[in-house]
C-alpha cells in the first residue's frame, strides 16, 4: 500500500493547480460560511432627523432630569445613522436609496412625553419611521430592529417613571419630602405618622366619645392604606417588565456563535478536501485504466480503497488542522483541547474519506466523481444546518434522519464538542459506523462497476 501512497503523493505533487484548488476552494467556502454564521447583516444606513428644538429634549420626572432624545441612541446600536436636518431631507435620502430607512423625532415628542408623564393626558409621543421596501430582506431587518429598539426605549422610560412612582408611594406611606415643580420641596406627613397622631389623640378621648369612634375608623383606614400601598411597590415594579425570561438549555451546549462558526467552517473544509481527494483519486485509477491492472493480483480492492481513505484523510487532516490553528489564534479557542480537535478531525476525515471513495467507485472519470461529490456535499451541509423549530416537526425529523446518514452532521458535532467542550464519543462512534457503511458501499460499487 505504501507504494500506492507514494505514487498518489507524486501525482499530487505534479498537479499544483489541482492541489491549490483543493485547498483554496474549501477554505474560501468555509470562510464564507463562517462569516455568514458569525456576523449579522451589515448595519443598514438610516437617516436620522431630530426635530426637537435644542434644550427642549429634557423632561423632569420626580425631580430627575431626562433627555428624551438619548433614547434614540439605542437605535444606533443596530443601524448606521445619517444625520439630517429635516423630515423632507430624511425622506429624500430614503427615496434616493442613500439610506434604507429614516427615523424622525418630531418637534413635539418631548412635550407629549412630558404631558403623559405628568398625567396630563393627550396623544402619546410618536416617532416617525420611513423605509425603502425595494429589498425585502433589508426591509424586514430594519422593521425588526426599529421595533425591538423602540420596545427597549419604551421599557427604559417606563422603568424611570415607575421608579419615581414607587418613591412617591414610599413618601405617602412613611412620610418625607417631595420635590414639586414651582413649589419646590414639600413635606409630606405620611400615612403611618398620620395614624400615630390619630391614635395618640384617640387615646386621650373618653371611651364613650362619638369622636373616638370616628377617629378609630380614620386610624384603621390609614393602617390599611399604608399596608396595601407597601405591597403595591413590587407590583408597580413588575409592570415595567411583567414577563421575565428564565432560560434553560435542554439539549446542546452554550457554544458561542464565533466558536460554532469556526466548527462549521472547519468541518466544511474538511468535507470538501477529503471528499474531493478520495473521490478523485479513486476515479483516477479507472480514468487511467490502471484499476484493472492493479486489482488483477497486484493489490486487493480493499487495500486500494484503504489507501485512498488513509491518504485523503491525512491530507485533509493536515489542511484543516492548520486552518483550525489559524482560526484559534483569532477567535481565542482553548489550546488545551488540541488532542480533542485531532480526534474529531480524524474521525470526520475518515467518515468523509469513506464517503468519497463510495462516490469515486461510482464515477469512472475524475470530473464526474468530483462533480458528484460537490453536488452531494452542498445539500448535506444545508440540511445539517437547519435549526430545529424552523420547519415542520415531521420535516425536521426527516431532515435529521437524512443528515444522520452522511458524515457532516456527526463531524460538526464532534468538532463542536472538541472545540467547545461536550461529549465526543457519540459523534465519533456515529462517524465510525458511517465510515464502515460507506466503505462497504465503495467495495460494492467497485465490484458492480468493474
Amino acid at each position, binding site marked *: 500500500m505504501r*507504494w500506492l501512497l*507514494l505514487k498518489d503523493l*507524486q501525482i499530487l505533487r*505534479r498537479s499544483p493547480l489541482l492541489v491549490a484548488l483543493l485547498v483554496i476552494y474549501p477554505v474560501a467556502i468555509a470562510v464564507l460560511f463562517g462569516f455568514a454564521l458569525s456576523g449579522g447583516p451589515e448595519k443598514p444606513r438610516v437617516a436620522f432627523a431630530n426635530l426637537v428644538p435644542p434644550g427642549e429634549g429634557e423632561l423632569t420626572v420626580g425631580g430627575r432630569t431626562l433627555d428624551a432624545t438619548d433614547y434614540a441612541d439605542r437605535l444606533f446600536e443596530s443601524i448606521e445613522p445619517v444625520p439630517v436636518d429635516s423630515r423632507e431631507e430624511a425622506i429624500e435620502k430614503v427615496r434616493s436609496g442613500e439610506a434604507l430607512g429614516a427615523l424622525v423625532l418630531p418637534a413635539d415628542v418631548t412635550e407629549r412625553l412630558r404631558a403623559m408623564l405628568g398625567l396630563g393626558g393627550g396623544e402619546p409621543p410618536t416617532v416617525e419611521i420611513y423605509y425603502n421596501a425595494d429589498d425585502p430582506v433589508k426591509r424586514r431587518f430594519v422593521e425588526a430592529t426599529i421595533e425591538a429598539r423602540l420596545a427597549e426605549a419604551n421599557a427604559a422610560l417606563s422603568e424611570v417613571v415607575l421608579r419615581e412612582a414607587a418613591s412617591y408611594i414610599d413618601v405617602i406611606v412613611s412620610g418625607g419630602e417631595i420635590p414639586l415643580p414651582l413649589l419646590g420641596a414639600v413635606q409630606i406627613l405620611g400615612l403611618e405618622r398620620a395614624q400615630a397622631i390619630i391614635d395618640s389623640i384617640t387615646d386621650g378621648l373618653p371611651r364613650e366619645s362619638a369622636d373616638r369612634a370616628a377617629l378609630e375608623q380614620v386610624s384603621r383606614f390609614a393602617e390599611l392604606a399604608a399596608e396595601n400601598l407597601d405591597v403595591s411597590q413590587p407590583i408597580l415594579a413588575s409592570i415595567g417588565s411583567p414577563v421575565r425570561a428564565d432560560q434553560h438549555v435542554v439539549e446542546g451546549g452554550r457554544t458561542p456563535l464565533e466558536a460554532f462558526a469556526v466548527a462549521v467552517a472547519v468541518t466544511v473544509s474538511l468535507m470538501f478536501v477529503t471528499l474531493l481527494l478520495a473521490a478523485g483519486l479513486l476515479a483516477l485509477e479507472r480514468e487511467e485504466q490502471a484499476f484493472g*491492472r*492493479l486489482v*488483477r493480483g497486484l493489490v486487493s480492492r480493499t487495500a486500494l480503497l484503504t489507501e485512498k481513505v488513509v491518504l485523503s484523510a491525512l491530507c485533509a487532516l493536515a489542511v484543516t488542522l492548520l486552518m483550525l490553528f489559524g482560526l484559534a489564534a483569532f477567535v481565542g479557542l482553548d489550546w488545551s483541547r488540541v488532542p480533542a480537535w485531532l480526534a474529531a478531525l480524524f474521525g470526520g476525515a475518515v467518515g468523509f474519506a469513506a464517503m468519497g471513495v463510495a462516490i469515486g467507485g461510482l464515477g469512472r472519470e475524475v470530473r464526474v466523481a468530483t462533480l458528484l461529490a460537490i453536488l452531494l456535499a452542498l445539500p448535506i451541509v444545508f440540511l445539517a444546518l437547519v435549526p430545529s423549530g424552523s420547519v415542520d416537526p415531521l420535516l425536521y425529523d426527516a431532515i435529521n434522519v437524512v443528515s444522520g446518514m452522511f458524515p457532516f452532521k456527526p463531524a460538526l458535532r464532534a468538532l463542536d464538542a472538541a472545540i467547545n467542550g461536550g461529549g465526543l464519543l457519540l459523534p465519533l462512534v456515529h462517524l465510525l459506523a458511517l465510515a464502515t457503511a460507506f466503505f462497504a458501499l465503495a467495495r460494492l460499487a467497485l465490484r458492480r462497476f468493474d
Partner: protein
Amino acid sequence: MRAESISKRYGARDALRDVTFEVVDGEKVAVIGPNGAGKTTLLRILAGALEPTSGSVAVGRVGWVPQQPALYSKLSVAENLRLFARLERAKPGHRRRGWRRTWSRGRQDDGQGSPADVERTVAGMLEQAALADRSGDEVGRLSGGNRQRVNIAIGLLGDPEVLLLDEPSAALDPRQRERLWQFIGALGTTVVFSTHDVGEAERFADRVLVLADGELLFTGTPDDLAATMRSVGRRGGRPPSDDRPGEGPGHPSDFEAAFVRFLHARGH
C-alpha cells in the same frame, strides 16, 4: 496454456460459447474477429480479470496488457515501471526465480523485492522497450506508440509465461504499428494477442484463432486460414486474388475481403 470449454453469458447474451484451444510455449497466437466477437472477453478470462460462466483455464504466470494503456500519465516512464515492479514483488505468492532476460542475470540471490533489484528490472525493461532515453518523460507526453510500449513493458514486469495483449495496435498509426510489432516479435515470451486486423494476424502470428459472435470458428496457421478462405472464395464463385488485377496474393485488402467471405460462409 489450455482453455477448456469456456463460456461467458451476460444476461441473455452469449459472449463466448464453448471455446477450447491450447497455446504452446513460445507461440504467438492471434485472436481475430469482428468487433463484438468476444476477443476482449476471452483475453480477460485468460488473464483472470473475469470469471467465465463455465469452463476452465490452465495457465502459469500471465502478463496482461489492456487495450488502453493502463499507466499514470503524471508519472514518468521509469516511475510507472518502478511502481508496478514494486507491486509485482510485493504481491502475495510472488516467487523468487531466475530471470530469463539478459539484464537480470547477475546476482540471483539478491532479494527480488530490494530497491536494487527493482532498479535493475526497470533499467532492463527500459532498454528492452527502447525507452531508456525517455525514462524521465511523463507518460502523458509520450506518443501513442511509446505509451503502448510502456504498457507492454509493465505487462512483462512479472516475468510472465504468457503475455496477453488486447488489441495492442488499435490506436496507432502504421509507422507506430510497425515498430510495435517489431518489439513484440523480439519478445521471447509466449504471446496471445487480439486484433480485428486480419493482415496483422497473418503477418505476426504463428497461429490464428477466429472468433465470431462468441464462437471459435477456426484454429490454425495463417496459411491454413488463407487456404480455407481461398476455398470459400472459390465455392462462392469469386476468383482468387491472383486472377484479379491490382490485388496480388497476400494483399491486405484481399485477405480481409476473403476473411469477410469466410465469416459470411459460416453464417456470421
